[in-house]
């Protein structure tokens, strides 16, 4: 089973493309999420509470 490690990623080209796409994408998302102003983030988090129609208990 250990030797099979050598056979992983035989299609290196596709694997590298996959990882490059993912990590670029992930960094882009993380940077954008962290850069967003606090006020806007708070506003978005409160959307479920901005429209009350509490007709029950």
């Amino acid at each position, binding site marked *: *089973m250990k030797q*099979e490690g050598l*056979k*992983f*990623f*035989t*299609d290196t080209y*596709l*694997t590298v*493309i*996959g990882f490059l*796409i*993912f990590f670029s*994408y*992930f960094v882009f*998302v*993380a940077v*954008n*999420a*962290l*850069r*967003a*102003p606090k006020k*806007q*983030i*708070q*506003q*978005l*988090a*409160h*959307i*479920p*509470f*901005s*429209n009350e*129609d*509490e*007709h*029950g*208990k």
Partner: protein
Amino acid sequence: MRANTDLNAHTENIIYDDKIVKYFSLATFGWGIAALLFGLIAALQLAYWPMNMNMEWMTFGRLRPLHTNAAIFAFAGNAIFAGMYYSTQRLLKARLFSDLLSKIHFWGWQFVILCAAITLPLGYTQSKEYAELEWPIDILITVIWVVFAINFFMTIKRRREKHLYVGIWFYIATIITVAMLHIVNSIEIPITPLKSIPVWGGIQDALVQWWYGHNAVAFFLTTPFLGLMYYFVPKAANRPVYSYRLSIIHFWALVFIYIWAGPHHLLYTSLPEWAQSLGMVFSIMLWAPSWGGMINGLMTLKGAFKELIQNPVIKFFVAALTFYGMATFEGPLLSIKSISAVGHYTDWIVGHVHSGALGWNGMLIMGMMLWMVPRLWKTELYSVKLAENSFWVSLTGVLFYYVSMTVAGITQGLMLNGVTAEGKLMYPDFVETVTKIVPLYWVRAIGGALFVTGYLIFIYNMYKTIKLAPKDAPETVVKVTRTGWDEKTNDVHRKLEGMGLGFSVLTFVAVLVGSVIEIYPTLSLHRYVNPEQTTEPFSALQIAGRGIYISEGCYVCHSQQIRPIVAEVLRYGPASTIEESMWDRPHQWGSKRTGPDLSRLGKKYPDMWHFQHMINPRAITPNSIMPNYPWLVEKNTDFLSLRREFSVMKALGTPYDENTIANADIIAQKEAKILADELHKQGAPKGLEKKQIVALIAYLQALGQKAKTPSPTTADNK
């Protein structure tokens, strides 16, 4: 749309369409009972096989697909639609786009479920897990899903709240991805009004099916529930989500990564290794976003300990999120090749799936309904105590279920993989490993019965709550304000959140990337097939028998894929190759071994052995838990559709000659006559040539016999 503009241009009075939410809620309650009862009967059958009452339509191979379809699409599906329609209207500050489309969606979906409930027990199946339904129902599902999508996206278009809350993002991902998965996995050619052949064959079919199967769990049982979680948990706890920034990262990472992970269902199979490795790595990476979501949900309840003690809704949500965390920890764990070597094909997977389905989905549904139903019917919850009782009984049930199946799976996996120092199997007799875990099947059945009991208490509570509702209560008019439309921002994601179409397109791209990279290379099958080792296709009678194998759901308990693992090669023979299943439409690799692998069963036993085994397995293997199949001796084989079936297979590339296609039914009947005469000589009744048992035996005897380079037969297939 029912809306009256106020004197203030930005404020309107509207009425949400809660009637459709009520319909979907009631359907959830009803189908939930059915789905759980089907599951309980199936669980009892594994502990005590006569529980099928000797009825073909209640036998495990047919009941299990009915149970999974009912649980996923009827129970969870209706709950998703109820929760989505309730929360979407409030998050977007808009009534649903069209009452008519909502009604078509509701009744159309119930009709789909009804069709499934009739066709699956009758044996009409494509044998693709969670996609068993035949082609007319597939088309109907597509139509209803499009109706749903139009209704949803047009509601987004007409929204008054410009910024899309994170819950809506998860709904968008669900609608787009489920449509893509369903359409690609259901490309099939009809051969009769209730039978079709998929265009994908062998390894392609396996990869497409598990790309679908895995992501059906991801985008039908995970993303919509995460969307519901992001709405209902903050509402129930009366506080905003713990970290909205984390929810942004959670969403984009989850939808991107999930789609790659399908091949972890095919580890050690003949799928190319690069695809297996990619699937395994992305499965492990899934840990991060999954736990990001779980932590975000649980941390939303931070400081609400008092609520946890007093409020059963919070209890259900905490349990659901905990099971989500457990299941999404265990999933990547099971995707590691060395763990998969033990766990795959065993009950460990069944335990894992049910910790998600009952613990995550079931608990979230019950919590959501306990919160939503009193508000929908404008009343109060009938009994907090009953809600508490339903919680504790259900929770005990899930724990019994999960622990018993995990122990059973690991036990059987280790027994099956056990090899002595001399290089022999420790447990050569497969049934020995089954007998060992039968007591745990009883524990599982008790767990299932407890969950059903908890659910019935919950249903009673819901029924009594609805009965408390005031008669003819007027619909509530809600004052809503248009917000966010005059905002100017340079922030990229902020802009994106305000763009329904742009957001949806990017979500589609995120799920498309992984799909294309994984599926596209395997479409060029010639890269992987060794021309020296191509296999002969099945004969006419064998194809007829294969249809019966599929119809009876044999694939539910038997695999046809030998992994390159020492114990499997010793037990079943050389590892399966891509070429061996290249003409299989649909593939029969299977995902569970309640019985042994059948890849190389052919010619291992005499024809009469199979005859006796199908009539009464215990006459051959005393402790077998396989049901009897007496109806195979009574029912006739369908020879008439063979010509059409052969012609479609030829069009898809299977090398049949024109004579075989033109006379497939006649050839099959001649083969059947020879086999039936042989069986009669060995002691079987006379005149079986038209009976299903003969065709099935012909197919079973051909398994592993078609390779041009014959593989040595094996040790033990009991």
